[in-house]
């Protein structure tokens, strides 16, 4: 009887341990994470630099028309980076689990980004995405699943935004697929943006953060104010052929203009090699 009792107690203990530990493959993402900013950071704001992005001609035309004065307009000045681009920018972040008080399951991850104090929630409870007519937001609607030790997140309902902060657009039909991988105190994101309107291929980026206990995200209020007194309805943009800054980036780095105009071919290693060979030839065009 006593032995039976011990066996039953042992079975119960095993059951409790398996219930208390994370589901197989889950990793604790909680904490404050700081970005070392050593990747893709120097050229992100240059007008006319579309290199390394799988954009189509429509995206190129929109970016050519883009004018940075846009950020000063009252209806645009408090826009944060969309979830598709936010990790590329200043994105120290806090990640906290959302716990169901009854089951103690993690039903979601709350992510707060430093810049513009943006908040996103990644639902882990299997809920469906909203219908097409539901509002779109800068952070979109995210659901996640564990694939081994990798958290895979799918985000839809993202506002029309940008893949680089120089006017290269993505549409409101863009879908973001993310894979979050924790290796010790380093958190790595593999971000994949699909946009049927402005990208010819998925745009893939990788970014990393370091765990930084004690880091605190500050408040980041944005107050809309009229900075320049324009007539109502003023929309800053460049007419075709009238953007004077499109060749500046290529000129600064001594590159042929075609090399910075983007497109899927410019994302591949062989393009860099072909470009090197072409530039090595006498009379090769540079910085047009």
């Amino acid at each position, binding site marked *: 009887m006593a032995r039976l009792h011990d066996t039953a107690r042992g079975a119960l203990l095993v059951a409790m341990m398996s219930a208390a530990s994370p589901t197989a493959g889950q990793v604790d993402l909680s904490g404050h994470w700081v970005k070392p900013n050593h990747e893709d950071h120097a050229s992100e704001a240059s007008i006319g630099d579309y290199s390394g992005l799988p954009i189509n001609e429509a995206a190129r035309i929109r970016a050519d028309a883009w004018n940075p004065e846009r950020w000063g307009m009252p*209806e645009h000045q408090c826009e944060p980076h969309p979830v598709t681009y936010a990790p590329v920018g200043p994105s120290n972040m806090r990640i906290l689990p959302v716990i169901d008080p009854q089951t103690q399951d993690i039903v979601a991850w709350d992510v707060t980004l430093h810049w513009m104090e943006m908040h996103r929630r990644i639902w882990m409870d299997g809920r469906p995405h909203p219908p*097409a007519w539901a509002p779109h937001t800068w952070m979109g609607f995210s659901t996640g699943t564990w694939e081994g030790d990798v958290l895979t997140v799918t985000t839809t309902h993202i506002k029309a935004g940008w893949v680089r902060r120089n006017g290269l657009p993505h549409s409101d039909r863009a879908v973001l697929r993310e894979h979050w991988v924790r290796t010790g105190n380093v958190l790595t994101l593999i971000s994949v943006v699909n946009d049927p309107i402005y990208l010819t291929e998925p745009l893939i980026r990788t970014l990393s953060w370091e765990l930084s206990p004690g880091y605190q995200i500050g408040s980041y209020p944005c107050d809309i104010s009229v900075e320049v007194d324009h007539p*109502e309805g003023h*929309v800053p943009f460049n007419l075709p052929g009238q953007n004077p800054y499109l060749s500046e980036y290529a000129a600064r780095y001594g590159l042929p203009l075609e090399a910075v105009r983007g497109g899927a071919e410019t994302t591949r290693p062989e393009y860099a090699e072909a470009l090197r060979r072409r530039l090595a030839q006498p009379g090769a065009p540079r910085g047009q």
Partner: protein
Amino acid sequence: MIAGPGGNTTVQVGRDGVLVVDPQTTAVSQPILAEIGKLSPAPIRYVINTTLDADHVGGNQAVAGSGQTLAGGNTRAATVYSSGGAPIYAHENVLKRLSGEGGVASGWPTDTYFVDQKDLFINGEPVQLIHAQAAHTDGDTMVVFRRTDVVSAGDVFTPDRYPVIDLQRGGSINGLIAGLNQLLRITVPEFNQQGGTLVVPGHGRLSDEADVADYRDMVTIVRDRIQDLVKRKMTLEQVKAARPTFDYDGIYGAQKGAEFIEQVYRSLAR
């Protein structure tokens, strides 16, 4: 908001009853009434049309006809029990054009306004009917629900498609842009250019100020591109060949883009 094949219907419910903006087409009247019934058992007291197209006014007869007019004194018996329908509000140009185009009078607006703005107070909040002059047509109304902070924008704002400038019915590109800027004056975002005032478009998803601004920018940029080409004495065919909507056609549709170019061109030529 009830999203349907005919566009979007806005429903406000409260102590006074039900207010319906744009009951969509005749074909979907019964499903619309069924959806309204799920929101409130109260009678439909008001119907408002934001414009005169069949996908906005087609359901007037069935939806308003199922409702009741609020009235008192000597008029009560005649209105509540005899005519048996809710009043239909619209700008007077909606009635003028519907009656001028012939057809059966049933379902036409019963209460019209001709000033810039008509104010009502229904279900505990001010409801303002604001005339967007010469926009999609010359009879467009934006309905502002001030306490709930919702605007029914009608076809002045259609984020899933290019706007339609109905030149035969008094629409114009500059009036449409003025209407979008008017809408941006009304909307207030909650935080980081997101949330706050909700905008129910004539067609497309539930939106906020950022979505309206994005759309206003597109319409203005296309207008200015075409205006520049017109200044260079280009014909309509030459303007179309210059593809002034090319970078937006993936979102709003290439075929409709060609129609939009023609509407803008002809509007600017007036």
